Structure formats: structure tokens, C-alpha cells
């Protein structure tokens, strides 16, 4: 029983107990706080699993942005309800049903655990093929090679999927509110601490984000992580009230969202003539093309993430603060 295994066991136990807390917490607020901590701990688990890129993404997106989204939701729900967010939850299904579902879920978890223990040895893997084809892609980070070379279609589609999601969020506006500004990230009240943070942190964050994008070609990092950091900085500025949320009709921002996938498709189509297949790169030009795609995609994903966080547009407030 080595030290690292002890650490791993400890981590796994803490993660499981946090998950139990999230499910068993009496109020939504506590569950969401638990979820944020859970996200950050999962990032450490990913480091232990040797996946630094995933750890970065989980910490920023899974813990950070998702936590922000859910915390905001929990706070807004407390305005509307029948069930106070800080109080007792609504009555759920009867105890018998819960017991039945509990037994079912335990069985499923046990079955999956058995499957995990019975997975074949030696483990099948594509790592060797990725490694041997890496020089052809020109990048040093194998995860970037998978994302932008071998399985570029998945990355393209994932950037495209963000657009209907964003539109779906926008669609929940009222017809009158369509021309307004999104309302989820508006500040409740300005505090000096938040304002200071929002003035000091974003420049550092932006530089860090751009750095993450640049080194992603050869080291852990890349456009997803960079985009999440940039989106978080923008969200911070909005939350502190230093800037207003952008209108959904804004042409430059709409163009920013589509330019990434469009450039990607353009390069992919040109690959049919230059390199014999859709989404193939001509020999020797792979790395510059990959960097170009990553740059525009970083922009698009940043804007899309901010719009996803910012919520549906709401009618502009009149001068005295009423809608």
C-alpha cells in the first residue's frame, strides 16, 4: 500500500462523501456550495489520473462556471417561490419509492463497479497510435492532436452545438425583451471588494487565458481552457457592474460566435482539395492551420460561454428601475 494509493483512497472517499452531501443536503444552496467544492476536488482527481488538460477544464468549467450558473439560479429561485431556497425542500416521493429507487441505484452502481473490476487486462488503448502519428500533426500535446487533427469533427460539432444551446437560452426571453440585455449576470449591489477584484483580476486573467491558448499546442492547455478563463473574466466584470451585458442583437458579437466554426469548416473544405479529405491538413502546414483554428475558436467559444451564462435578454429597465 504505497503513499500514492493512500492519497488516492482519501481523495476518492472525500469525493464520494461530497457527492452524498450534494444529494442529501436539505437546501439547494448547500447542495450548490457542495457542488463547487466537489468540482475543484475532481480537478485534483484528474491530475492524479494523469490528465492535466481535463483537470484544467474541470476546475474552470465544471467547478467554476457551472458553479456560478447554479449559484445564480439558486439565488434567483429564492425570489419566486413557494419553497424557500434556504428552508426545507418540498415533499418528494414517499419513503417506499425512495427505498426502491435507492436499492435500484445501489444495484446499478454495484454492477458498474463489478464491470470496472472485470475490465480486460492488458487495457486496450489508442495511446500508441496517437503517439506514432503525432509528428504528422506538428503539435506536441497529444490531446490537442486528438481534438484538432484526428477527431477534428468532434471539436467542430462541439463548437457548433454551443450555438443552438445559446439560442435556446435566448429563446426564453419575452418578445418585448428580445432587444434588451441579458439579465442573469446583473449585479445585485455593488461592493467595493467585488469592484476591486473585477478591476485587478481581468487583465491578469486575460493574459493567462491567452497564454493557455498559446501553449496548448505542446503542453496541457488549449482553446477550451483559454476560452473558459476569458469567459470567467468577462463574467466577473459583468457581475461587478463595471460593464453592461451585451445585447443579443449585437452584430459584432454574433459574428464572433460564428467566425470560429465557419473558419474551421472553410479550412476543412479546403482540405478536400489540398489534402484529399475533409478536415485533413496539407503536409507541413498542419501546425499553423491548427493554431489559426484554435485562435478563432477561442474567440467564438468565449462569447458563446458568456452568452450562456448571461441568460435570456430581458426588457430594459426604465429610469426608476422598474421594467
Amino acid at each position: 500500500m504505497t503513499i500514492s494509493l493512500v492519497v488516492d483512497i482519501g481523495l476518492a472517499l472525500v469525493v464520494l462523501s461530497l457527492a452524498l452531501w450534494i444529494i442529501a443536503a436539505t437546501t439547494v444552496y448547500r447542495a450548490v456550495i457542495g457542488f463547487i467544492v466537489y468540482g475543484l476536488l475532481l480537478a485534483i482527481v484528474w491530475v492524479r489520473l494523469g490528465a492535466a488538460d481535463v483537470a484544467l477544464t474541470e476546475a474552470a468549467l465544471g467547478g467554476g462556471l457551472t458553479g456560478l450558473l447554479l449559484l445564480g439560479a439558486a439565488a434567483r429561485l429564492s425570489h419566486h417561490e413557494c419553497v424557500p431556497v434556504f428552508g426545507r425542500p418540498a415533499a418528494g416521493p414517499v419513503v417506499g419509492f425512495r427505498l426502491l429507487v435507492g436499492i435500484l441505484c445501489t444495484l446499478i452502481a454495484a454492477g458498474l463497479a463489478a464491470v470496472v473490476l472485470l475490465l480486460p487486462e492488458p487495457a486496450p488503448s489508442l495511446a500508441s497510435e496517437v503517439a506514432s502519428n503525432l509528428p504528422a500533426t506538428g503539435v506536441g500535446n497529444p490531446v490537442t492532436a486528438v481534438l484538432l487533427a484526428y477527431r477534428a469533427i468532434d471539436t467542430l460539432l462541439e463548437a457548433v452545438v454551443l450555438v443552438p444551446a445559446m439560442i435556446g437560452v435566448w429563446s426564453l426571453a419575452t418578445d418585448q425583451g428580445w432587444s434588451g440585455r441579458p439579465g442573469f449576470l446583473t449585479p445585485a449591489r455593488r461592493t467595493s471588494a467585488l469592484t476591486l477584484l473585477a478591476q485587478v483580476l481581468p487583465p491578469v486573467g486575460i493574459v493567462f487565458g491567452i497564454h493557455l491558448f498559446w501553449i496548448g499546442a505542446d503542453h496541457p492547455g488549449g482553446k477550451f481552457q483559454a476560452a473558459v478563463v476569458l469567459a470567467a473574466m468577462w463574467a466577473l466584470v459583468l457581475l461587478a457592474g463595471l460593464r453592461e451585458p451585451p445585447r443579443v442583437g449585437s452584430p459584432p458579437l454574433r459574428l464572433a460566435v460564428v467566425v470560429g466554426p465557419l473558419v474551421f469548416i472553410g479550412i476543412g473544405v479546403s482540405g478536400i482539395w489540398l489534402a484529399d479529405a475533409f478536415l485533413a491538413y496539407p503536409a507541413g502546414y498542419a501546425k499553423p492551420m491548427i493554431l489559426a483554428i484554435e485562435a478563432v475558436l477561442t474567440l467564438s467559444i468565449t462569447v458563446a460561454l458568456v452568452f450562456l451564462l448571461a441568460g435570456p435578454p430581458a426588457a430594459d429597465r426604465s429610469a426608476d428601475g422598474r421594467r
Partner: protein
Amino acid sequence: MPLYPLVSGLLTGLVDLGGTLLVIPLMLPVTGLLLILAIGGRYAGRIVLALLPLGLAAAAAVVAAVWETGDALSYQLGGWTPRLGVALKADGLSAVLLLTSAIVILAVGVYAQRPFRVPQGLSETRTSLVFWLLFCGVWGGLNLVFVSQDLFNLFVALELLTFSAVPLVSLDGRGETIAAALRYLLFALLGSVLYLLGAVLFYGTYGTLDIALLADQIARVNPLPAAVIAAAALMTAGLLAKTALFPLHLWLPPAHAGAPPAASALLSALVVKASFFLILRIWFDLMPVLLTQMGAQVLGALGVAAILYGGLLALRQGRLKLLVAYSTLAQLGYLFLVFPLAIGPGAARSASLVAAPGVLTGGMLQLVSHAFAKAAMFMAAGMIAAALGQDQIRKLAGIGRALPITVLAFGIGGLALTGLLPSGAYLAKTLLDGAAAESGQWWWSLAMQAGGLLTAAYLIRVFYHALSGFGEPPVLRARPARYQELVVLGLALCSILLGLLPSAMLALPELGRVAAVVTETP
């Protein structure tokens, strides 16, 4: 300029592209989606209208290519090997569905020009931008599901479909439709995550996510490892939640009835069929040995439950759109009968699955025929509801005289569903009945007869009310446009005339598929 040489020249050019042709159905809707967002709301409907014929041409070219060569069309994206990269493949099954969805999407796209146009003086409306953008999203997601060969790529396709379909349900902003959309989203997300878990277990066992490579490895193994059985069960369960098979059907009726008519047509006719298509892929292509197991009988039993439950509840509905939505539930049940019927005659259980060829064709005929008929019925029901201001079945009196073409379209669609000659459903039932008789499983035929009776019953109820009313014609709040009525009528006619296809064409769903040798596990 003469039209026929132009069209045939275009088709020949497309077919000559070979595998690269498959990129077009994929990228056309996606590019449309991005252009609509960039260029803005006024032109959204017109951009889509321009792209629709190109999509139809591409789908027709795929069918022509598969038909000519008798083999599937394949393409490696990025030029990487199958283990490392993602492959696209269109066999006969995919080709049929690509063409069906292209036709339905064309009809819906034309129909929806009117309700979602931007009025003069406005640069954009919420409903217009959202609808057309999500329309392209649904179209792109469908095409990707039909041609992709990679399990994770299919997961992304399913998510694209979900994200595009859910906001369409809540488009009108009422509380009930928002609740319906949220319930749909939760079911769909549960389905996606179970599907992904299954894909993860497949990777963990074989180190690849390509369907052909996995099928190859699984076929050589006997007995199946626990991880593979668990993966198949999880993926099937997840996809069943998305297809709304009984008992995971709760989300479908409010969602399909609450969406705007054009969106309901897309949802009922095509979106639920995409997840069913994936279940077919998993059971027929990935792991055909599953068909000899109890699982196939369970799926068939659930299908029967859906047929009876959907049919009985449809009888009780007071609103037209809800009746049509419950009818979808029932019709989806028919599709699941292909699983128990796919086994050949009982004595030859270890024979190749090609011993029961009519089953897959029958299932496809049912699917295509239902897609055309249901889309026509939802759009017709939408026009009726808009004209009368409500869609209570009891208050439909006189609508038959006021909107004859619309009611005719609805009626033809309904008759096509009941299996009237020469509709596709009639042919489908004949083929499935034949397979049931051959394999000695007569109880499935009984279920199909019962379903047919229920369908006829609830349709007669609608016809009775719609065609009655000899007094004053009802006051119409809005008349549908002539072109809308004709498009819907055309779609309904497609469904009822499907059975007139030359019988040689019925071999299309079987083309390009490797005949699997199924041995029963001890």
C-alpha cells in the same frame, strides 16, 4: 433552361463525388445555421429555403449512389485510419432515412415560411430567428446521426438534436410548454448520459469507438463479456428514453402537442426516429447476437404496451394535437416489433440474419410512412387550430367544409396510418405479419391487428366531428395559405402512395449491410 438535364447533371455530379458526397448533408445545415446567426433574422427563412433543395439533391444522390453500387458509401474524415479517426458511412438504411428526412424537412420548411416570417418594419423577431436556427440544428443533427460511424460522434449528434429540439417546444413562452420542454430536456439528458456510459464501456473493453471495428471484435467473442452486455443495456435504455418507448414516454405528449405545428411535425416525424435508428444500429449492426436473447422479446413486449397504451389514450383525448401526439406513441410501438421478428424461422436460429430480410424493410416502411403521415397530420392540425382558434375535437364541426384541402390531408395521413392499401403501413404490416407467421410468433400479429383497430377508432372519431356540421360554416380566424395546404397534402399523399413503390426498391434498406452470422450463446 431545361430542368431535367440540369437536375440529372447535378445528381450525376454529386454521385461521382463518391464518399466525399457524405460531407454535404453534414455541413449544409451547419453552414446554414451559422449563416442565419451571422446575417440576421430577416433573411433566415429565405436562407433555409435556398438550402432545402440542395439538401434534397444531396440525399437523393446518396440514395442513387448506394443503389447503383449496391454497397455502402464510406468516408474517412481527415484521412486518418479508422482506429484513430472518425468514419462516415451511408448504407441502405441511412440512405432511406436521409431521403425521408430531406423530404419532410423540405415540406416543413416551406410550410413554416408563413408563420415564422418577419413582419414588415422589423429587423428580426424572436420566434423567427429561434425557429429557423433550431430548424437547421435539427436537420444537421439528424443527418449526422444517419451517417456517422463513431459512437462518440453520435453522442454529439444526439446532443445537437436535443439542444435544437427542446427550445422549439417552449417557443411560445407559455408556462405549460416551458414545463413540457424542461421535462423533455431532463429525459433527453438522462438518455444521453446513459448512452455515453455505454460508449465508455465499449471503449474500455475494445479500445475503439468505431461501429464496424467493434462489431468485428464482438462477433469473434463468445460468450460476451459483462462490460459489453452492460454497455448494450445502458445504451439501449438511454436511447429508449429518447424514443419515448413505454414506460419512458411521459415527456412526449405534452412536448409534441405544445410545440408550434411545424416543430411538432419535425419532432414526431424525425427526431424520435433518430434515436430509434441508433437502437437499430446497435442491435442489428454492432451486436446482432443480442437479437437471439430475451432482450429482443422485452423490446417487442414494450412495443406492444406502447401500441395499446398510446392507442387507448388517444381515444380519450379531447384535443386534436394531443390525439396526434398519443398516436405517435402508439406508432412508435410498431417499430419495436422488428426486434423479436428479426430472428429467422425458429429451426434456423443459427442461420444468417438475412433469413429474415422482410423485417428490416417492413420496419423501414413503417417508419417512413409514419414520418410522412404524422408530419402532414401535425401541420394540418396546426392549420385547423389556427383557423378555429382552438383544437377541441368536439368543436370541429363544419371544418371539413371550410378547409377541405387541410382536412383531406389530415384524413389521408390518418388513413395511411391505419394501413389502408396502398399505403406504406399496409406493406409494412404485410411484411411483418409474414415474418411473424414464419417464425411462429403469432402474438405479434395479434398486437398489430389490435393497434390497427385502435388507430381506426380514434381517427373515425375525428372524422365524425370534422365532417359533420350541416349548419352555418364556422367563422375562421385565419385561413392557411394555399401553398401550405398543398404541401401538406403532398406529404400525406407520399405516405399513402408509398406502397406503390416498385418492389425492387424495397431491397434498398438491406444494401451495404454485412450479413451477420448469428450464433446463439450457450
